[in-house]
């Protein structure tokens, strides 16, 4: 019942935000960019190249999922560890492919080539807050991993994946708890995703610009879009992980802090108070994380160009970034 409720809340939130984004785009976030007819072929090629790049990255994510599924069925799930790491590995594979694919976004045309003298940086294609979001969510996730790790206790098999609360002479143990057993591999994954995202952003910014000035705006729109996908995917993964850890940890807190002591239940504070707060926060963060992932998917699946002989439709680069 609770699961169905959570799924309903999740679906409703995603549906609402999706509708809001679609409505916002239809009204003001889109504008028409005219491309000369002789460049329509180059723009079409660029669009195909972008879609292909994203498609290959999705395929790499699917490979990661399949590989983890094979590990899960042949070796075992390690008390859920393989499933915990699967979404992060899928994100990591996606980012690595985006970083590795060709450097030229828009094919060159003409023999007279020009370049501007502005330095392109990873933060040239997104507002500052969009860069802060993945960094802040990554740091919060690491802080949560440390906090849960420090408070965890070993199970009988010696793995730190439970929470033991003591109210002498009584003690209560509950699990699964996101202790070091889950936290250390997850911290490693956070580091890998961060590096992959940084490299992908740097590659998007550093790739060569079109040699024809009239394609500059198309090029900028594509860079903004690629940057947005990377930002939302990274932030969404981190925030969803944070929400998941809080849910898992709070559930264990709730069980362990409600102790049966001979004749009565005793609530161990502050754990008993923290548990529902953690549950609600975790649920909200999970929803936010999923929404960010859905928004990244929308950006990835909806190229900025519509079919046309000499014109394209694109997001507004400066105002709509990230």
């Amino acid at each position, binding site marked *: 019942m609770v699961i169905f409720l959570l799924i309903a809340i999740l679906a409703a939130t995603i549906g609402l935000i999706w509708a809001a984004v679609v409505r916002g785009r239809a009204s003001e976030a889109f504008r028409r960019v005219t491309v000369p007819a002789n460049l329509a072929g180059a723009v079409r090629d660029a669009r195909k190249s972008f879609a292909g790049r994203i498609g290959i990255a999705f395929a790499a994510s699917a490979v990661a999922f399949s590989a983890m599924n094979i590990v899960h069925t042949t070796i075992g799930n390690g008390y859920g560890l393989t499933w915990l790491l699967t979404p992060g590995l899928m994100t990591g594979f996606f980012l690595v492919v985006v970083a590795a694919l060709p*450097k030229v976004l828009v094919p*060159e045309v003409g*023999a*007279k*080539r*020009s*370049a*501007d*003298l*502005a*330095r*392109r940086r990873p933060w040239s294609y997104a507002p500052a807050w969009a860069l802060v979001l993945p960094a802040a969510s990554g740091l919060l996730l690491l802080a949560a991993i440390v906090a849960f790790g420090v408070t965890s206790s070993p199970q009988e098999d010696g793995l730190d994946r439970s929470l033991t609360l003591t109210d002498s002479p009584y003690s209560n143990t509950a699990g699964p708890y996101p202790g070091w057993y889950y936290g250390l591999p997850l911290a490693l994954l956070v580091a890998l995703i961060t590096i992959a995202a940084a490299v992908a952003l740097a590659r998007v910014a*550093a*790739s*060569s*610009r079109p*040699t024809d000035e009239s394609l500059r705006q198309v090029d900028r729109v594509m860079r903004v879009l690629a940057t947005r996908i990377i930002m939302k995917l990274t932030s969404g993964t981190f925030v969803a992980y944070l929400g998941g850890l809080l849910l898992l940890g709070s559930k264990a807190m709730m069980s362990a802090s409600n102790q049966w002591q001979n004749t009565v239940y005793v609530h161990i504070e502050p754990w008993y108070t923290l548990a529902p707060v953690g549950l609600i926060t975790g649920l909200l963060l999970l929803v936010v994380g999923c929404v960010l992932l859905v928004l990244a998917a929308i950006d990835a699946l909806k190229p900025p160009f519509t079919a046309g002989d000499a014109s394209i439709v694109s997001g507004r680069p400066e105002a709509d970034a990230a």
Partner: protein
Amino acid sequence: MITIDDADPTPAFEQIRQQLTDEIRSGNLAPGDRLPSVRQLAGDLRIAAGTVARAYSALEGNGLLESTRLGTRVRAVEPLPSQAREAARRYVAAVSGLTLDDAILAVRVEWAARAEVV
């Protein structure tokens, strides 16, 4: 903006050097402005990185650029006098029917004639 023209017999590195010199001396690039990395500019112009590096190196030798670990920056140089730019603007407006080469040729001839008088 830097433009490379394959039809121009001038070597690519010289085209870059000349255009950057013009940008710096005219004040379009201010002292302290950072230039794009060698790799970025070479990639955008579809030329070898060594060509851009050679142009940057020549400009460093001329005292127009300086390279640090953070990148290449424009050095403080004496800009073209504003009255010279103003006179050039009037001259360009007056000879609108000429090509750039012919306009420069006219200046060169008059410059040489003035030198002989002096």
